[in-house]
């Protein structure tokens, strides 16, 4: 009995192989994505580097977690991808099409329909004078014009049910619903667009613990049932582990480590990933290297050359002061760190450092 089930499963995977992720353009790809903000007074030369030279890919039916502290630029990335901000430099390709070139109203609407957003705070994301159906019906009217009046209402009921709410909720007002129900409506609103990608900016951080699990399960369900990809933005590695296929760790506007979820979490390479992990792990068996860390966000106003994590990094070496580390492959992951791969050795071998220095120059 056990043998047979095993063999069918093998057959299943074998069949799924060629139809699965073949070599093609990912759903969304960002290259050298950069966003700077001018801060200070009118004549100030201070520039805040919110996102700097960031590479990112999201494949179809994939949940990618973007993890980092507050102030690391995670939300700016989501806003760049949603075209709320225009990038200072770099380009976003959606299905191979440069997003910057989408200019006509039709193209912009198409992109907004393909890439939807769910916001952090379900308590302020809804207009209190409208019923819950308002946003969903409006999205349907704008983006799916082929639907008639009644079809729109039926579709609104369908998305409402697909996020686990009763269709009666559509006639309610925001104040009549709990935080978890509102966040589900947020997802329903996004789903009404039939998007291929949902950008979820800390969708559970404002919710009570008991309903967080429901929203996390909903995200996994959307990937599995509706074939949607998600960019899940969070500061919590534990919930990222629960939902995500891949993890991108962000620090001070840059990706510092990227790789498959379990690999990154079981064997973190970047010191910052280790710090994040030690913050959620049990303190009784935690790494003591970070015991003095106060969780202060990095300064990203006019950052010079050098690693931005070096002030908090217990492993920093001289090279970190002068050369900005770039993402490099290290085993199954990518990491932007001069010392990663040498951590745990008594002393970092000098040749490795000179090698990096010459490459950086």
């Amino acid at each position, binding site marked *: 009995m056990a043998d047979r089930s095993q063999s069918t499963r093998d057959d299943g995977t074998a069949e799924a192989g060629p139809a699965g992720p073949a070599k093609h353009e990912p759903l969304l790809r960002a290259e050298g994505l950069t966003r700077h903000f001018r801060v200070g007074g009118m004549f100030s030369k201070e520039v805040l580097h919110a996102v700097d030279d960031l590479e990112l890919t999201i494949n179809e039916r994939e949940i990618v977690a973007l993890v980092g*502290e*507050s*102030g690391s630029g995670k939300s700016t990335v989501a806003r760049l991808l949603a075209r709320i901000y225009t990038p200072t430099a770099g380009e976003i390709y959606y299905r191979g099409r440069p997003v910057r070139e989408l200019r006509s109203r039709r193209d912009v609407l198409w992109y907004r329909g393909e890439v939807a957003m769910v916001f952090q705070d379900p308590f302020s994301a809804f207009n209190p004078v409208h019923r819950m159906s308002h946003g969903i019906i409006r999205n349907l009217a704008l983006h799916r014009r082929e639907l008639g009046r009644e079809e729109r209402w039926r579709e609104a009921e369908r998305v409402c049910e697909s996020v686990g709410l009763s269709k009666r909720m559509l006639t309610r007002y925001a104040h009549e619903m*709990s*935080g*978890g129900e509102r966040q589900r409506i947020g997802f329903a609103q996004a789903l009404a667009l039939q998007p291929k990608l949902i950008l979820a900016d800390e969708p559970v951080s404002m919710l*009570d*613990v*008991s*309903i*967080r*699990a*429901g929203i*996390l*399960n909903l995200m996994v369900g959307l990937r599995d049932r509706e074939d949607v990809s998600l960019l899940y933005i969070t*500061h*919590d*590695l*534990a*919930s990222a*582990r*629960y939902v995500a296929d891949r993890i991108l760790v962000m620090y001070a506007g840059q990706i510092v480590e990227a790789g498959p979820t379990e690999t990154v*979490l079981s064997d973190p390479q970047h010191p910052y990933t280790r*710090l*994040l*992990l*030690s*913050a*959620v*792990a*049990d*303190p*009784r068996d935690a790494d003591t290297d970070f*015991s003095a*860390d*106060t*969780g*202060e*966000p990095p300064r990203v106003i006019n950052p010079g050359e050098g690693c931005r994590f070096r002030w908090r990094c217990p492993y920093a070496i001289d090279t970190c002061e002068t050369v900005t580390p770039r993402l490099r492959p290290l085993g199954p992951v990518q990491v932007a760190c001069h010392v990663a791969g040498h951590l745990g050795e008594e002393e970092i071998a000098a040749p490795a450092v000179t090698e990096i220095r010459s490459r950086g120059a």
Partner: protein
Amino acid sequence: MPDPLLEVDGLTIEYLTDTADVRAVEDVSFSVGAGEFVGVVGESGCGKSTMLFGVAQLLSPPGEVMAGRVIFRGQDMVRLSAGELRHMRWRDYSVVMQSAMNALNPMKSIAAQFKDALQAHEKLSSTEIHERSASVLEMVGIDPAHLKSFPHQLSGGMRQRAMIAMALLFTPQLVMMDEPTSALDVVAQRSLMSKIRELQATLGFAVIFVTHDMHVVSRYCDRVLVMYAGQVVESAATENIFERPLHPYSRGLMDAFPTVTGPRRELVGIPGSPPDLAEPMSGCRFQPRCPVAMPVCAEVEPELYAVDSSEVRCLLYTDVNGLGETG
């Protein structure tokens, strides 16, 4: 055992609204010994903050203490006058509010706010005020140079630390904290919690710590009260509740969290939401959401039953048959 620092006995708090009197806290009793770290856990709307405000005597209408006593160092705080309370507040016990963004005055520097609090209780020279302010800031790990800073110039974590520094100006015996870490991200939260624990160990004050995060509680508290719908549903030492949570609600709260280590398992959370306290209820208040509810749970309201060294409000831990007949 010496007399506890704080003893709450049968505390009941109601919000008297036009349509209904909502009993937000019902018959809550517990005690806090000197230097003890007690956690209060529950979802939003379970009455934890109301309970804390009741203990600190900070309730404002329509909230009112309907019954019970709050004995702090031998005095019943419920019966004290506003003037008597004013002498005790901040000097003997202090409160750290949930959101430091709103709790600090945006128009005043940190030094000016510390000075206000100090001058309210003691006659001090300006050098003494500066010294005391600088020393408490240093205690919480902020450079005393920030005394001149305004709240908007500090990060969220630093503001929360400044609030804690302010609560320690007079080295009170009891500090009550209402979700001080909830608005912070994981690294800042971890660092703040270790700081609180360290200060508590060196200065010896007791802490009542309100949170919805079971994991924060598990690491830092000595004892935990789990609240649901205005009642204490479980009261136990931290090790016990963590290794063997008795109440199905405590178990639900623990299982609602994903972990970074160990096998990945499906999260269930707790379906539904806490009951509307304005509606009359019969039986166990958790019964509509309870995965192990029995028919009798809808009829008989459980009391707090002693199980080993813990107390739990659940019919699983009593002779249900006997109750069913009488109820």
